[in-house]
């Protein structure tokens, strides 16, 4: 009988434990889009950043060169993304000598590349590397970035040879530094 009680306590504590675990990703939101048209008619041949589909992009998630990579998924229309960008920029500058590299992956839509993304990066004087991930088959590639990812942005992947973590949430500078510390010995 004692065992049964123990078991029930154990089961309950596990159940409660996972109830608490549901930390809602603070993955948020948008500023107002300037225009509603989405289908791109003119080509973006001269866009300043590399444009990848997921197949082309995927190797950047699995580099094995001793560096620690911070891969941040963002878009100019995503307000909380914009809020945290300066922290990524700062880490990129501060941790360069620690073999850390920040990669900013823009999920802006094609009609925003010239009209919003380029001016934004220029205006902010962003130094981190920016690439555009342009692949509408999101249901296929989102789980390949991380099974944990529901699709919200901001989202960040930190990885090196030994370790890999995914975060569907926004960061403060301190939080980002703390997480990065776990990757640097």
């Amino acid at each position: 009988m004692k065992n049964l009680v123990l078991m029930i306590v154990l089961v309950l504590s596990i159940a409660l434990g996972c109830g608490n675990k549901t930390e809602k990703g603070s993955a948020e939101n948008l500023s107002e889009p300037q225009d509603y048209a989405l289908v791109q008619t003119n080509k973006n041949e001269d866009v300043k950043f590399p444009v990848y589909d997921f197949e082309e992009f995927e190797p950047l998630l699995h580099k094995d060169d001793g560096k620690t990579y911070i891969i941040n998924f963002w878009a100019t229309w995503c307000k909380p993304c914009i809020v945290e960008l300066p922290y990524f920029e700062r880490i990129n500058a501060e941790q360069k000598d620690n073999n850390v590299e920040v990669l900013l992956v823009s999920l802006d839509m094609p009609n925003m590349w010239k009209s919003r993304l380029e001016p934004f990066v220029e205006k902010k004087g962003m130094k981190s590397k920016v690439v555009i991930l342009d692949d509408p088959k999101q249901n296929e590639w989102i789980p390949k970035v991380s099974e944990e990812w529901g699709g919200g942005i901001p989202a960040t992947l930190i990885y090196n040879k030994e370790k890999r973590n995914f975060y569907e949430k926004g960061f403060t500078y301190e939080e980002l530094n703390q997480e990065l510390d776990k990757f640097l010995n």
Partner: protein
Amino acid sequence: MRTIKMFGLFVLVLSLGAFTVSSNLDVDGYGIGDVATDFSLKNIDGNMVSLSDFKEAKGYLVIFTCNTCPYSVAYEDRINALDAKYKPQGIPVIAINPNNPAAKPGDSFEKMKARAAEKNFSFPYLFDKGQTIYPQYGATRTPHVFLLEKTDRGNVVKYIGAIDDNYRDASQVEEKFVENAVDALLAGKEIKTKTTKAIGCGIR
């Protein structure tokens, strides 16, 4: 004693199983097979709308969407088309704007009316006042679709996710997730793809 131990172990395994399954689903909210809550929310025409108002419905396409998200905007015509196709078959679209206008002025009730008129929405476009409904469903982004089937035990969640596999260009779509799910439901068949993921705009 031994049977009690075994029973305990059995319960433990069961609960662990439940834990694994639920952790694969989108945040809190509903999973497939859960009974979804009804609601009474204000429509852009000023009337309150509930799922139970649709006496003849076999189910519902509850779609959390808004004015301001570029993904939602990209899907407006396709949401109209879903309503046109499935309302006559007993599965109407019920759109809900989950955003707080204080955080997103473009999603105010007045702006909802304007957008719906501009795009000729054929479906109710409801305002989630006080943001009480979307967290119960577990909607995390716009657009976020919940297909419900009306059953004796309530409105059961049958599909959660994206409308199709190409937000950018309706003509390039290869898999119509929602249409496939609704067609299977109407045919009494098993829905093959029950959940999908998509980049969307977080709800604020």
